[in-house]
């Protein structure tokens, strides 16, 4: 039960979050964006939703091998929350 720190709700258990996808590379075709999964190694850029809480969509930069979150921004918003 890892926790993710929602910018609005604070640290919450992972079960409250919904993972959607890892972000495609810029300039990928529609086919590649949809069907090809990009392995970003230790710097994985992902979309998550706090579906069991405030329902905000988040852009999370994360190291999948350690679970360490490098940055977390509200999707579609210009400012970064800490």
């Amino acid at each position, binding site marked *: *039960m890892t*926790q993710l720190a929602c910018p609005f709700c604070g640290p919450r258990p*992972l079960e409250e979050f919904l993972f*959607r996808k890892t972000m495609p590379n810029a300039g990928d075709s*529609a086919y590649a964006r949809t069907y090809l999964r990009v392995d970003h190694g230790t710097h994985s850029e992902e979309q998550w939703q706090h579906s069991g809480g405030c*329902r905000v969509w988040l852009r999370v930069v994360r190291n999948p091998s350690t679970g360490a979150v490098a940055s977390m921004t509200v999707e*579609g918003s210009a400012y970064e929350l800490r």
Partner: protein
Amino acid sequence: MNSADRPRRRPTNSRRAAREGRVPVAETRPPVPSAKGAVEGKRYGTRLRDSTLTFTFDGVRYAARAGDTAAAALLAAGVSLFGRSVKARRPRGVFTAGPEEPCALLTVGQSPLVIPNVPATTLVLHAGMVLRSQNRWPSLRFDFASLLQVGGSLFTAGFYYKTFFWPTWRVFEPIIRHLAGLGEAPGACALSPPAVEHLSCDVLVVGSGPAGVTAALAAARAGAIVVVCEREPVCGGELEFEDSIVDGMPGYQWLARSLLELRTLGARLLCNTTVVAEAGDTVIAHTEPDGLPGDNTVYRIRAGRVLSAVGALEQPIAFIGNDLPGVMLLGAAERYAALYGVRPRGPVVLFGNHHRLYAAALRLRGLGANIVAIVDTRVDGELLKPEPTAAVALAQVAAAEGRDAAVALLRACGIACYQGHTLHAAHGWRGIRQVRVAPVDAPHAAFTIDCQSLLVSGGWVPQRGLPNASITGAAAGQVDLASLMTPAYDAGLLAAAALGFTVSAHTAPEGTGDPLPVVVPYLRSPAAAAEEKRQFIDLQNDVTVADLRVAIAEGFSHIEHVKRYTTLGIGTEQGRTSNTLGAGILAELRGLEPQQAQTSRARPPLAPMTLNSIAGQRTGAAFRVSRHTPLHDWHAAHGGVLDPMGLWLRPRYYRANGRDAGSAAVVEAARVRATGGIADCSTLGKIEIVGPDAAAFLDEIFLTRASALKVGRARYMVQLREDGLVLDDGLLLRVDEQRFLATTSSSHGLEVLSHLEHHLASAPGATRATTLPTDSRGCGLSITDVTDSWAVIAVAGPSSRPTLQGLLPTVALDRLSHMAFIDTEYAGHTVRVLRAGFSGELAFELYCPPVLAAVLWQALLEAGLAPYGIDALDILRVEKGYLTTAEINGQVTPLDLGMQAMVGQGNACIGQTLLARPAFHEEHRPCLVGLQAADGRAAFLAGAQIALSAGGTRSLGYVTSSVFSPTLDRWVGLALVARNHTSLGTTLWARDPLRGGDTAVCVVSPVHVDPEGLRMKGLP
């Protein structure tokens, strides 16, 4: 002479005693004046309480003291045979005194409410407990299958792959199945779900031995919130009984004082609690009071730092016959003596490779054990180091007068010292009788010693714990008290300091106990090749040195391969007494250096857990939430048979209409077509999209343009996923220019909501020009789940309009066209009347606040409409070819579902681009078709595979839904079939070999009933 004083014949055999109606009593315990005592300054029986109790083992009653474990009480009563091994059916006794027990596993309780494989060593007895030995038939003393083992080589490594092939495996399978398996599986579960507790702390200390308590003290003194998990019923580990001095007082006194200080500082001490796994940053621990599943608590502990102080495990030495009852680890014998006052039986021989043997021999002798010999493999090993307490006199002799004098002193006590000797074999039938000892360098000069107990110690290995915890104490290799306390205290301080606590000025406690043992590795005594099959490594799985040889000869050399091939260390105790020994012997057999021995990987759970514990509270009704509609109570009270569909509980049918779902649904559906009916459709997902950008946003979502929809109108809409497959369908209602209400299928509500929110967040304003006030994300739009804000009642059938008109006289229902809606009032609440349905009849959907639902439902009932359930709804919609999640299965495009016209409108929505993928246009793409049974009333069921012929094995698709249609008086269905086989009139076969056999079906239009839609228009 009163009866109490009358001399009694001492029972020679506990069974005879039981036959004579007497309860066997503890013979081997020292006389106990009170529960706890001391002999020559030694504490013993610390776990015992004053009262007594009785229990049965294999049908015989035994007496025990409160606090006894099953192993302690039975050992005290003279029982040495506890069970038989799972493969070779060899007699087995007690080998350890803790959860690492490989042999003495018992079944607790009576069939069917049994709990199998409970270690006798951790099971604390209760009055009247019923225990049984395992793996024996017909009885423990005589086991039939053990006769198979006379040759001793039937079940060698990999025997499954080698034996029982003539004439065929099936001949042997029933016999093997009867013999296989560890214990008896329970026929029923009598366990209540465990309590689940979430704990949050700064420092979690696993293990409360000297290192654990010291580390916990350090952290707690620095101000950290500390939780300590201890698997034993009491804290302290070795401090509970071992001769030791800490901070100038006996170890157990220091322990009591430290535990009190910990409690005062707010630390939580969890006894009987085993840490089993680590999940993310949470540690899972569980409590099994008295070593038996029952009143369990599962702890999920989130700790800032985890310290593992789980101690070290004593290791056995392999020799011939090392599995006989009576062979026990030395430390276990010391624990039985100290904690339960049980002395090892009869003449005792000690065998090991380090000097702690001597101190232990003196301690056990002090408690009255009859030690006859010490066999020490070291040729010229150090005899004794100066010790603080019991052995001090002997140590002084050794120091002052030399080794020979000390040996002479031991001999004067009746203890023969064989240094530089090894123990080749133990002999006996159901228990040890004799051991064969020889000098290490002269194996032929062997002699025998008679004994009833053999205590073995091959050194210690650190116990494995959680992979990510910091390790301290014996688990980190500091096996003696003097050297472990300062590092343990520092570990506690470090953990607290890392969390930002200010470290206080206290200093680490100073302790002295048994000195650091200098262990000379010694894994097994020499044996002839033919005898290696009696040198056991894993006692639970009967893995011998010979098995390792077989594995190596057959090419399995890595420890992980050998583990799987020979079953080394895969038992309930996870090989705690066999992993290190097996790895060492494997290295030896492969000709490697001992340092090159590999260790196999430990995997969670670290201790056995019942499935009940793993499930926790999430069983039965709490397995998942269930959602109720506002009309739930009415359905339940009026014969509605409620079934879960997704999270919702929905009425499948009403009992008044028929005995079973099939007949009742047919009655209900036929009544809707004939007159009318009402159904509870409140489970529909409802999402409100409001804002100046709403129409533009929905244009991006739906396959057809939402902005073209007029206010007051609804339309059937489909939304696609990014990959072009259909996500969901439903009606979209335009309430006003900037307000839409989208309905989704009952089970897809949350998914669609998430999809909309995702698109809003990912592409804000992609095609939308916001001019009006916006939210913080720069978009004039809000998306709200309003599923629970609207109850929905479907009113369908020819009589729906006149009946409804009677209830809502102010609305001109005859002027309300198909797919139009209007808001009106009923009993002071808003009711939205939408002319649409899911049945192909003239039908309306009434959207109302939940509070009004029961009132409106009652009024409709009183107006003469009868309710119908989901099964009837299913009949009506399959007859009309309407879709549900059975067809929209996440694998079909709108083209597959016959929505070419909608796609053809060319709206640039999500997923439209990828619809052009060539793969979506291949000739064998699934295509939605209707099916009718070719032969009258022959049935075919959803899930049946479609084939070209009756025996055909190539699947062309499958039946997604099928119902018995009362309108057509035959079975009809919908199917997804390869497009190149879907010309109307084709005869295909619905193959359902497991349920109904094969049925010939005709491909027809998906719209089985009223293809012109006349009924929907209210035309007869």
